[in-house]
């Protein structure tokens, strides 16, 4: 079957297999920032924004995004690094970096909805994004820093 959708402002018209998951389609189209880590909707590494809302691409059917708007991590650094990306670098919040694309996509969502989150709100909102390297401390610091940066912009 054929579907048409927008990824990072670019329109794609692609032939897909029935039952194909969005992560496979996106990676096939070259959006390698979408990471495959668990396939069971439990780690958040494959997160993308669907019409501005973070979803797990490993459990979203590509057929379901026909006519919709997808944003991957790449969209957020189109004009230089975003405050979250900058803050991750400053705070050491990205070690191996494998979970980071999904984290960035979800954290952008958080700050859109809640420009001044508390530590607890950050932990709750990003609970679905696992990281094995950092112990989360530096990532929390990074989101707090990025929130402040965004507010003062």
């Amino acid at each position, binding site marked *: 079957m054929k579907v048409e959708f927008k990824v990072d402002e670019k329109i794609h018209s692609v032939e897909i297999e029935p039952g194909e998951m969005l992560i496979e389609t996106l990676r096939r189209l070259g959006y390698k920032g979408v990471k495959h880590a*668990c396939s069971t909707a439990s780690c958040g590494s494959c997160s993308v924004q669907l019409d501005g809302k973070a979803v797990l691409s490993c459990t979203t059917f590509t057929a379901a995004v026909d006519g919709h708007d997808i944003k991957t991590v790449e969209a957020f650094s189109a004009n230089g690094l975003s405050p979250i990306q900058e803050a991750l670098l400053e705070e*050491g919040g990205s070690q191996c970096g494998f979970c980071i694309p999904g984290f960035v996509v979800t954290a952008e969502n958080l700050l859109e909805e809640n420009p001044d989150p508390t530590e607890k709100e*950050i932990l709750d909102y990003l609970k679905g994004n*696992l990281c094995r390297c950092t112990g989360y401390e530096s990532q929390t610091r990074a989101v707090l820093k990025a929130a402040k940066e965004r507010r003062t912009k």
Partner: protein
Amino acid sequence: MSKIFTEAQFSVVNRSIQKVDGKALVEGKPVFTDDFEIPGALIVKILRSPHAHALIKSIDTSEASKLKGVACVLTYKDVPHTIYTRAGQGYPEPSPYDAFVLDRKVRYVGDAVAIIAAESEQIAEEAMKIIKVEYEVLPAIIDYEHAMDENAPVIHDEPEISGAYDSKHNIASHYEMKLGDVDMELAKCDYVVEGTYYTPNQSHAMMEPHGALSYFDPNGRLTVITSTQVPFHARRILKRIFGVNCRVIKPRIGGGFGGKQAILVEPYVVAVTLKTRKPAKCIYTREETMTASNTRHAMRFNVRVGATKDGKLQVMDLRGLSNTGAYGEHSLTVFMVAGSKTLPLYNKIKAVRFVGDIVYSNTEPAGAFRGYGAPQGLFGLDSALDELAHKMGIDPIEFKLKNSIREGETSPIFRIMGEGREGVEQIIKSCKIEECAIEGAKQFRWYEKRKLPRIDKKKKIAHGYGVAFAMQGSSIPAIDMGGATIKMNDDGTFNLLIGATDLGTGSDTILAQIAAEVLHTTVSKIIVYSSDTDMTPFDKGAYASSTTYVSGNAVKHAAEKMTFEIIKAAAEILKKPVDTLKLDDDSVISDDGERINFSDIQTQLFYTFNQRQLEVTESFVSEVSPPPYLVSFAEVEIDLETGKVKVIDFLNYIDCGVTINPVLARGQVEGASAQAIGMALFEDHIFDKNGRIVTNDFFTYKIPARGDIMKIEVKFAESYEPTGPFGAKSVSEIGMDTPGPAIANAIFDAIGVRMKRLPIKSEDLFFEIRKKGLDG
């Protein structure tokens, strides 16, 4: 000569420079193994054994091979029958040679049976389903405590096995050491504590699954891109198996923690590429990464410790049993580290014994995992010392501090216990364990907190406070080598070529900082290229807490040699004596103020003057392995109605020498703490009766998620290790050691219950709470 350097003396080192690979990572650039697309690459899948122990009676691949789009199906009949160890260690490895790419016998649920290569994943999976295998199922050992039972099935009966201690009795390795008479000295002690402690087969659960990709380059050179911590060991072992030399490239690695210090996926893709001449890619699923790669060695330790009433620790006696699973990679060395990286901490004892067996069982193989045995050994040892202090009525900090090692001292264990062989003597040149304990206690408010009431009957919660002391090492001395090459460019930049393997730790960055510091330049002028066996000098790889120390020293020596070469060239150009010149701010300056910048020097050397390329290579092997030290403080809150334990605060006070990059060093400790808190409280593998791991994904195998741990803090002691690059020691592993015992000690402090098995499951703790009548 413990000299404290202040920040002012460094311009690049001891600064929180951003990771050199950081920008690409936060942008989600295609830098990991699975992100590389080679046109026409076959997708490789592995058919795995459903039985824990079985012989393949027959295997029929004819139908699968005929399926359209299938390139090949390989069984044990089609791959070299070469025995090897999957352990990525220095050669000759101290691990038994007991593994084949594919064998007629399968030894755990998940062991490889056949390699399928097809044009797509779907076709490969389709083909996998129609391979017909007839198994002769053998009795299996699922519980490693029964591996040495009489009449236990023999797991490794292959005639080719070598290096195993007693494979007929399922003993992969055995180790024993003793100093003094343990029983006699224990009899003289006023206080003795004995206990049996268990640590689990924790999964690394790095976010990036294992994976590898192989192809012939245009000149016919076999090339392997792989998510490995040990590219040079991978190349050597692939040569052993297939008789083919190849190039191994390590791209960015999505976490390893020791799990990628083994040769796992590479032989499968190489077998396919050699057979078909086509590129081949194999990326493990999460389930394969969980159940068919490797885990931490589960261990049981029977610990006896004894002290005299003057507060002196006199005896440590550890008898262990370690589960290496189906294959013996890292079996001996991980077990030895359980002693060699814990016992020297207490160097004033009269008698010490460390003995045990590392046994095969029909479970997922164990391997290297952050801490490499030390967390297993320390859980029992530190728990027992805590109990001993309690029995004696002494504060555990006071007791452990009184008996621990100091600067200028040594331990005979350094010489006795190495990695798989004898160790090396060493005098401790940097040890700030007193500061760690005393300042840490202050910041944690240890003494105030220990006066607080522990049990709140109204809220049905209890609070407890525990402490643990740890040491680790920095490198495997006299064995592991790292090399570094520095090449100067005509724009004033330098290529830093290193075999050292950044697996997310930031080692590329800290090695660039070391080079920049020596060369009086900035990190932006150091172009790091790491881990490509055809392009970079040898390095043992990323393990044994050695990259900062060994590779760091190699880089420092190379940069010093480059400094000499630059000054020599400048002397020729400026016609001034060498001893009147020095480096300053990307230039060479003379006593009388004349200046020539790096760019001008190399440009002249390229085109117009005494023409040559400035390039140097240096190697480093350490004679010692200076331990970092860590004192960790845990505050737990226990729900008395459920047994659930919450870590309220976990404070680490660490002596890792000078931190080359404080933010990255802090991240190493924070991450290790979280991983070890996972092992202490959440992470538990469950087997079904056939030996299959049921907990094979992130739903069922619970690693700490955001919010599961309330607070992890890291403080650094001011310390300078004279043998380290700019005073540095290792930092990445030690944080793994303390959470297990610190949390168990805190639980004991809260409710008087001594938990001796990790993970401390809420249901187990709840039953203990009930027994004590604290639940109502």
